[in-house]
């Protein structure tokens, strides 16, 4: 929903090339935790260049981070909604495959959009920059079978936007910036997630022993129910 056409009232007050005003760098992208439920941590540095101090009315900005997730991982829309309710994020949206149960070879990619508040008056040069840390909870899907026992899922660089709004005299004015981070891309690279996967060599004996085990249990229960239950015992009792 960033594609919404935003009114350009605030934008008119900004220099033509906002890139001169705003500097952005993704300092670090790491996966926190272990196992199937981890957090993708992105440290983003937002800097207003000192040579372009602006005189703007009171405004509020939020960073919009768009993650394109591969089919091997997913973000839980309900969990993100919960974080939104707790005001960790100012807005959230998940597009694409949100089925939580599907393994990766049956699912599609998904896109996660997260809005995070970066405070007020950031463009007025009152702050020389700020560092934002976004923790996005992610979950691993079941991976395609692999002889090595592990699959590697790579999460690429996110797209970053910044949206600012100012309380005008008559109406709220907003402006959306796309913040290029070409330099950052080369620095941080993709994040790799090593996820356990089933081993195809197990297929034969796992199926065999699963069915043998089910059959044995069935026979034992059937035998007990027919020959060893209280009914049988009472019959024996009577005969004796």
């Amino acid at each position, binding site marked *: 929903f960033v594609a919404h056409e935003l009114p350009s009232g605030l934008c008119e007050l900004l220099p033509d090339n906002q890139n001169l005003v705003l500097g952005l760098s993704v300092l670090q992208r790491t996966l926190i935790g272990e196992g199937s*439920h981890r957090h993708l941590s992105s440290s983003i540095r937002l800097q207003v260049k000192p040579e372009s101090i602006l005189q703007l009315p009171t405004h509020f900005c939020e960073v919009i981070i768009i993650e394109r997730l591969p089919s091997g991982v997913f973000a839980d829309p309900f969990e993100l909604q919960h974080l939104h309710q707790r005001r960790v994020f100012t807005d959230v949206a998940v597009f694409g495959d949100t089925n939580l149960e599907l393994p990766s070879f049956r699912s599609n990619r998904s896109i996660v959009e997260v809005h995070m508040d970066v405070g007020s008056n950031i463009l007025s040069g009152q702050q020389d920059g700020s560092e934002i840390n976004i923790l996005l909870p992610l979950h691993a899907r079941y991976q395609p079978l692999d002889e090595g026992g592990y699959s590697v899922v790579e999460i690429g660089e996110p797209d970053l936007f910044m949206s600012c709004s100012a309380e005008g005299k008559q109406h709220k004015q907003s402006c959306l910036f796309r913040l290029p981070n070409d330099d950052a891309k080369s620095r941080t690279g993709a994040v790799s997630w090593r996820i356990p996967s089933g081993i195809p060599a197990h297929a034969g004996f*796992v199926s065999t022993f*699963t069915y043998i085990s089910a059959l*044995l*249990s069935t026979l034992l229960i059937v035998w007990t*129910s027919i020959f*060893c*239950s*209280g009914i049988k*015992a009472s019959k024996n009792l009577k005969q004796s």
Partner: protein
Amino acid sequence: MVWLLNPFTFTIGTRGNCEPIVCAMILWIIICLMKGSILQAAFWYGFVVHFRIYPIIYALPIVIVLDPHFFQSGLRPILWHWTSAQAKDSQIDSEVIDRHDMWTAFKSIFTRERIMFGLVSGSVLFLWTGLFFYLYGWEFLHEALLYHLTRTDPRHNFSIYFYHIYLHYEHELSVLEKLISFLPQLIVQLVLISSLAKDLIFCFFVQTVAFVAFNKVITAQYFVWFFCLFPLVLPWSTMKLKWEGLSCILLWMGAQTHWLMWGYLLEFGGKNVFLQLWVASLIFMAANTFVMIMTIQHHRYSPLFKCLAKSKNSVKIE
């Protein structure tokens, strides 16, 4: 105490699952049947199957127990009044009832009570399903019913089938494979019903334990389904807590804890322990089977109702 102070029941009951409500409805259905309120039992049965599908396994034992020898229009069914001293006599008597029923089963399958129960519970089920279909459309029908017919969850769970399903998930399982995995469930249910249906509550209990054990997906919330019946069958067990009872409890819990250890290493440790986890599922299945066998062997067969024809010396329970 077995129900209330069970960490499973209060954890699962307070995390948002509606299982305790389902359990309460099942217990109420049993009470209704014991009081002879077939219409009310049928209403709640139709409602509970709409709520959760699993109580559908109780349909056959209920129909069997609605025998004309126990239920006759205008008459309240007579319950067995149990004391430990009567155990021997009643066991012998129960055999007579069973032999008698082999003949009557063919003779009088379609009794008034059975038809009434079937029609009322079926109508209630269809009405509720129809109402929610009207409100929410196909999405409801898919989420509530159709999804369960086609569900094959490859993710790890207590079921012995999970790794097999995962390893074969990339190609569709054939009808034969699906049938083979469904057969043990079907056979066990039919055998338990045919041999224990008259002892209705115990039948419900072992049916539920077996249904959960042989299911393709087993999660901890399913255990609550039979925990609610456990206190009702406990008095009829001849099993001593020391050591038979204790060994059953420890084995069941031990097998589960063992599974949970490997589950933790897979899910929260990111280790490839699928094989160990599957072996732990087999061990848990063995533990379930052992507990079921011990329970059946040590259960004092106690039919719920007395034959109306032989009610002279019976005690009517209000």
